[in-house]
């Protein structure tokens, strides 16, 4: 059950009770999240996340622009998984207008999005361990992430806020040399992946920090609408790529990793396994890629029919739903972004209660939040 708004002025401060302000500028909050904590000594009595420091009113901006102009804004919401957002916006508009996407473009979209997912998970891996006090893993992850950034830079032209997909396909095709480079990266990365586990997963100190910390029960997952690795770490194997396939994901053979523990370790295991699955998807996509056009014919000035559409995409952080209401003009009438981190963070107050402050930061890190995505 939801809680009423706290009144900090009336809270009686006991001998060891005090209010602590965490953030908005704190390395553990990954961006500009502020959490007001009521502490009893080292333990958290109550956590109250304060949002909005990165608020840009994206939904209103979208109402004042054409469908094409909105596209780069969408990619700046989740700066670590920009291609998933790019894909979601393109697929939503294509679904609304009934555009076809050539098979080659769909395959390239999957390859690029999955590469982006791996780079996002790698950054999370490094940053999560940084939260726990380990500096070396961060550098290890960034060495591999750098290779993915180079690969994506070659096709998209940017290194972080990619905006590569267009309505009806891609603006430009990829060449054979790029596909070969991706295969080369996969082979090299597969040999380096065991090092990640040797360095961290089996580390005793690490295990003590994450085992049985921040346990999310499957019952709570539905109540808070969790998704992504946060959900799958609690034993529910819901993945949009499997349950509501888009962009040809139903053609690839992959498993949805699930961990029953529900703690920080569970979420960690799920993401590490997801990296392996993403590699497999990319490999299959490159293996079965067809020659052909990468863009179907779409009108230059887009006027979708009147109506509405919902499009769900699995971003590295969970289920994104874009809901567009169109009134038949060049600009969307209303756009709602259902972002995964928003729902995932809403359970934090419940998880933090009764935890040590250091453990709460581990929980926050294990959620893999991107704050601009929550604030929109």
């Amino acid at each position, binding site marked *: 059950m939801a809680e009423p708004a706290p009144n900090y002025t009336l809270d009686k401060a006991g001998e060891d009770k005090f209010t602590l302000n965490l953030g908005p500028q704190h390395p553990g909050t990954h961006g500009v999240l502020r959490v007001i904590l009521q502490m009893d000594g080292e333990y958290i009595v109550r956590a109250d996340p304060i*949002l909005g420091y990165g608020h840009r009113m994206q939904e*209103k901006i979208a109402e004042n622009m054409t469908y094409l102009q909105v596209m780069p804004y969408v990619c700046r919401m989740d700066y670590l998984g920009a291609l998933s957002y790019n894909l979601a916006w393109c697929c939503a508009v294509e679904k609304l207008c009934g555009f076809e996407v050539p098979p080659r473009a769909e395959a390239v979209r999957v390859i690029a999005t999955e590469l982006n997912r791996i780079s996002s998970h790698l950054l999370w891996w490094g940053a999560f361990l940084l939260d726990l006090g380990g500096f070396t893993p961060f550098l290890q992850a960034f060495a591999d992430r750098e290779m993915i950034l180079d690969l994506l830079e070659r096709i998209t032209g940017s290194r972080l806020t990619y905006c590569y997909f267009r309505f009806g396909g891609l603006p430009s095709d990829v060449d054979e040399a790029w596909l070969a480079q991706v295969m080369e990266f996969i082979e090299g990365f597969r040999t380096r992946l065991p090092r990640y586990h040797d360095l961290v997963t089996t580390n005793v100190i690490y295990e003590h920090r994450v085992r049985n910390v921040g346990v999310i029960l499957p019952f709570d997952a539905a109540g808070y609408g969790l998704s992504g690795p946060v959900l799958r770490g609690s034993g529910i194997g*819901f993945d949009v790529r499997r349950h509501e396939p888009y962009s040809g994901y139903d053609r690839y053979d992959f498993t949805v990793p699930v961990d029953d523990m529900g703690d920080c370790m569970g979420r960690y295991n799920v993401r590490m396994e997801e990296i392996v699955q993403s590699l497999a998807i990319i490999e299959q996509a490159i293996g079965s890629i067809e020659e052909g056009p990468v863009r179907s014919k779409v009108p230059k000035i887009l006027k979708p029919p009147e109506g509405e*559409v919902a499009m769900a995409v699995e971003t590295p952080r969970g289920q994104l*739903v874009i809901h567009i209401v169109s009134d038949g003009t060049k600009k969307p009438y*209303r756009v709602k972004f259902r972002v995964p981190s928003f*729902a995932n963070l809403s359970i934090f107050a419940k998880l933090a209660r009764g935890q040590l402050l250091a453990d709460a930061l581990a929980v926050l890190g294990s959620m893999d939040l991107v704050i601009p995505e929550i604030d929109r």
Partner: protein
Amino acid sequence: MMTGRFLARVLEKAGCACRELETPSPGFACQLEAQADEVVGLVRIIAANGFFLESISAVDRLKEKKMDGLYLFNHYEESQRLMIRIEMDRSNPVLPTISKIFPGALWYERELGEMFGIRVAGCPDTRNLLLEEDAKFHPLRKDFRGRA
């Protein structure tokens, strides 16, 4: 019509309390129209059948002087997006809180309050969520003219 087994159960229990759209829009398995006072009963049935809350949002229809509250639900076992649309009077939009059933609804309801000026009856926390704490304007209303 793409009705999964969970959805069929919900519709059976809900009975004729709500109107169902014949052809749902792409991306939705089912779209319902209901009155504001039926929401809590409907959401209880939906929650009992294992659905999770995707989002709560609204659409301002300035020309018709109406405002629609939109509830989106989905199921973890088979994807079947269910939408409930509640039509309200634009001058005094009121929705009941469902945060007692879905605790995650609280943030969406706070967002409705600040962005659309919708009063969420019984909502335990009505502070602004994303806007500054003393903001009294409602940016997602169509008659709001910002800098954009």
